[in-house]
């Protein structure tokens, strides 16, 4: 058989094995995605209640000048930024979208930054660009608990309390649906309590307002970060599943095309062979 058909056959074999790999990755991502999505949903009630509680509390302490360091506003001169990306790629434009949002933010601010990077992709990019990365967290579990994420929030809280930074923001990919993930920038510090509507309930506080507030505020920040991490994981698994599904589909299409040209080439070579034999026989006759 001529070289051409052999080449095509080799090509088909290689595309087939690629399709097998992407199919497997798609299935792994799909099962992880389901778990990640349910974790995001399960963690929402807590942060909603927390929001509500903080709103009540803030209304109650509204009269105070500076009720707690984490509520204190300062002229923003130095800024802390928590960038949450995935450790791995092969997930379409997810990481680059998040990184682009972070980069635009850094450009817009034009202020000294202290950056905490979560995830290899974001960290590598930031370091390559010579940004001031003060801490990094990689190799995160797919199913983190709140305790796994507290070190990230505490770096920012400590820096804020020590006036090393005057504001803190968080950049992550918000999980909207399996097909839609949106990069989001949110201010973390100073904490801005939600406005409460309706009549204000008078609470009894134990031990007292500032005591409760002092415990609630850091926890509030921790939960915001935890939520963002979960959203990031759910986004990554969804984006990877979709990207791998597309890759598998493309590979299968390519296999179809290649099979067609393989058959054509094979047929052409057979036809040539037959006509050679026929003309050879005619010459003898």
């Amino acid at each position: 058989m001529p070289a051409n058909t052999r080449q095509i056959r080799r090509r088909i074999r290689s595309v087939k094995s690629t399709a097998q790999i992407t199919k497997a990755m798609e299935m792994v991502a799909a099962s992880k995605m389901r778990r990640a999505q349910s974790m995001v949903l399960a963690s929402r009630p807590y942060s909603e209640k927390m929001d509500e509680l903080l709103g009540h509390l803030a209304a109650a302490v509204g009269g105070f000048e500076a009720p707690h360091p984490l509520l204190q506003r300062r002229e923003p001169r130095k800024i802390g930024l928590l960038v949450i990306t995935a450790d791995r790629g092969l997930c379409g434009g997810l990481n680059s979208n998040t990184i682009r949002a972070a980069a635009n933010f850094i450009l817009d601010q034009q202020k000294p930054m202290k950056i905490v990077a979560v995830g290899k992709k974001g960290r590598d990019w930031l370091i390559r660009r010579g940004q001031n990365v003060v801490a990094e967290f990689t190799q995160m579990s797919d199913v983190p608990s709140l305790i796994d994420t507290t070190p990230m929030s505490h770096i920012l809280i400590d820096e804020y309390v020590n006036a090393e930074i005057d504001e803190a923001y968080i950049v992550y990919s918000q999980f909207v649906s399996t097909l839609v993930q949106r990069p989001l920038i949110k201010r973390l510090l100073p904490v801005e309590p939600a406005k409460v509507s309706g009549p204000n309930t008078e609470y009894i506080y134990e031990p007292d307002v500032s005591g409760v507030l002092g415990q609630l505020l850091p926890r509030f920040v921790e939960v915001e970060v935890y939520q963002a991490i979960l959203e990031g994981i759910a986004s990554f698994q969804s984006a990877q599943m979709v990207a791998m599904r597309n890759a598998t589909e493309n590979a299968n299409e390519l296999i179809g095309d290649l099979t067609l040209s393989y058959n054509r080439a094979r047929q052409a070579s057979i036809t040539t062979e037959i006509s050679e034999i026929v003309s050879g026989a005619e010459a003898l006759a």
Partner: protein
Amino acid sequence: MAKIRIEVITGERVVYAEDADIVVAPGVVGELGILPQHAPLLTALQPGELLVRKGNEEIAMAVSGGFMEVRPDKVIVLADTAERAEDIDLARAQAAKQRAEQRIEEQRDRVDLTRAEAALQRSVARLKVVEKRRKRQR
């Protein structure tokens, strides 16, 4: 008798949400028993046992700190962690207690000490809940 809605929520999931007769919680300034129509209250919690009574049924949970918001018809517990008594891993809690005690004895520096003490409190709370449940079953 009037009922009170109790919701126990952690950062990871909703642990418990039902109507009950009374809730006993470990507040930072002491145990609190909450009956329906309680005045609005907001308190921090310390590691300990959270008890919910509902008819003849008694549900024990170990919480390791958090917050509790009480409204006349509703109690919301935002716990750092919360486990039903039957979900607690006894061996793990005991191991954690030993580890914490050992660390307190070594007393390296202030930060470690506070952390170890907090860990000790948590594990003691878990063990207490488990032991109480065992006694009741016998």
